[in-house]
């Protein structure tokens, strides 16, 4: 190797190193700049949910059924393909075989740092400045990488066309795109409560509350301030905005 070749090789190596480290840095700077977390910290609204499991009953399905009607979520009668934007499961303390079963609601956690938004190859999954994570069904290519990326299994896919269309104000669920809880964004934007919250109030349980986490006077903020709350898998750093009381 003569001197010229040496300098060429060294130049390529240096340039390559700069690129190799620079590109991820540029990409990651996108992650932190202008996230909903920061924008909402600047004064906007930041929607969150509090679920008070102490008031939730094992045998009640008011919220899940109201959600299904409101959002046209498909029920095919096969757990492999059913779409549950909110689902009620029964849990038991680990290792306590005779302990009583408790109800638990699982839904999209509206993460402040959503892995699904990071994963989506076409920006069809996006986060509004108020923190709500949505899917643009007209942009989605149906690759299902968001479902792979979601550590909560909150995304459900429309494997089949939904024959039912109960709520004509909302789009019909077509096959080929995923769905997850939108916090009934169409209702929130009209100043109404999400369907599940309304249904829960109707049966008198009042276990669900949705509101502005940035407003210290909102119901959710007061509940979080006065009760011990938990989010699911806090260790993942996704910063969920669905808080549980009594978990």
């Amino acid at each position, binding site marked *: 190797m003569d001197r010229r070749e040496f300098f060429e090789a060294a130049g390529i190596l240096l340039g390559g190193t700069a690129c190799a480290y620079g590109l991820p840095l*540029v*990409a990651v700077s*996108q*992650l932190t700049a202008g996230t909903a977390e920061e924008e909402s910290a600047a004064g906007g609204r930041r929607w969150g949910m509090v679920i008070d499991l102490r008031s939730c009953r094992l045998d009640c399905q008011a919220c*899940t059924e109201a959600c299904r009607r409101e959002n046209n979520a498909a029920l095919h009668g096969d*757990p*492999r*393909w*059913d*779409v*549950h934007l909110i*689902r*009620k*499961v*029964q*849990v*038991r*303390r*680990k290792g306590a075989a005779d302990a009583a*079963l*408790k109800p*638990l609601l*699982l839904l999209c956690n509206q993460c402040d740092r959503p*892995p699904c938004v*990071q*994963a*989506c*190859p*076409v*920006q*069809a999954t996006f986060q509004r400045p108020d923190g709500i994570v949505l899917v643009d069904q*007209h*942009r*989605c*290519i*149906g*690759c*299902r*990488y968001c*479902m*792979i*990326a979601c*550590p*909560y*299994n909150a995304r*459900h*896919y*429309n*494997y*089949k*066309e939904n024959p039912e269309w109960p709520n004509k104000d909302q789009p019909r669920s077509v*096959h*080929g*795109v995923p769905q997850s809880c939108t916090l009934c964004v169409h209702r929130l934007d009209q100043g109404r409560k999400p369907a599940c919250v309304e249904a829960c109030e109707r049966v008198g349980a009042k276990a669900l509350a949705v509101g502005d986490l940035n407003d210290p006077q909102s119901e959710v903020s007061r509940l979080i301030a006065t009760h011990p709350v938990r989010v*699911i*898998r806090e260790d*993942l750093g*996704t910063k969920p905005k669905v808080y549980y009381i009594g*978990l």
Partner: protein
Amino acid sequence: MEYRFETIEGRSPGFYGLLAVLVLLILPGVVSTYLMYRHGIYLSGMTNRVPWGLQIIMAVYYIGLSAGSLVISSLYGIFGRAEYKPFARIAAYLALLLLIGALLSILTDLGRLGNLQSSFSHFNFLSMLSINPFLYNMYIVICAVYLWAMLKEHDLWVRRLALVAVLWAILVHSGTGAIFGFVPRELYQSPLLPPSFIAAALSSGTALMILVILALFRLTGRALDDLLVIKLGGLLGVFVIVVMYFLFVENAYRLYMAESREAGYFFLFGGINAVLFWGGLIGLGSIVPAVLLFHPQTGRSIRWIVVASALVVAGVLCERYLIVIPGETHPPELFRDWEIRDSPWEEGVVHYVISYHEVFQAIGVAALVAFLFILGLKWMPLAPTEARVSPRPAELGEGSPDGAPAA
């Protein structure tokens, strides 16, 4: 020494028969893909818990296979190893086709193919599934230009492009590993996946090249020096060992760390995973081929090298299954202290049952790749009339190779 590259004649009944068979194999895949496009991909075996299935396994498999081809091609292009020149063109062409096969596998897997234009208009720089298709498309272009330079005998450009192609291949395979490694799931998340993906790519790709080269030279009656195949076999043996090393580190880490121990057990000993890992990947796919390739007798026998290569090609398919599926069938641990007893949905460990539609799709893509490969041999001078090593076979030492025809 000088090689004379020539197209194959491609007029025998056998040639047309082979093409006809391949077309017949493609057709069911086309029908299945159309049905899924029309009615939804519930026709596959995929579910809400297993949203990625056989087509994704095949996609990463093809991407891996393309690597080895290119590396062999570059041994000539970059390092000037003239003995590999006879394979350089075939390898580059095969790498290109395998990448097309990978892209086709991904495309036929999409639920909303009609929205595909958004992958160009709304590129997401943070998404591994956005970055990778870009890498794949560029890779196809680079391979095509590289092949063109070889066909035109532009030696300077061949060397330059070979370097570009190999560097790009490293990006492609690291990126593909990152699709899974950079995801917060117990059995996916791993910084080791990109490099281990490269290792498995090299071993499976080299093994496939050995099979393709032998089949091609034997079927067309062209002379092939056994020493070349034996050398490739030695290379393959090293790659297989490297793959095993990565597998060992990855799984030892999982078992050692308390938080991933349970997932590690599931990966190594959970039902079908255990069969594919210990039986398919480690036993038949790594140990047996490694022994065959390093053994002084079998390592010099073409017949045994073919067996070892076939085993590696199958073993890495098991490895690709194990990259994609266990990470999905293993349930995410949502709570440290609660277990889910009842749900309207599938919680806990689930199973992935491949449907015949997916099998048709996979066979269809494979047949299409083979179809284009064979046509390419007829249209382009890809293979030399004979492939001999420059040093005399006497340097082989004692123990003459068992030159039994394999194809």
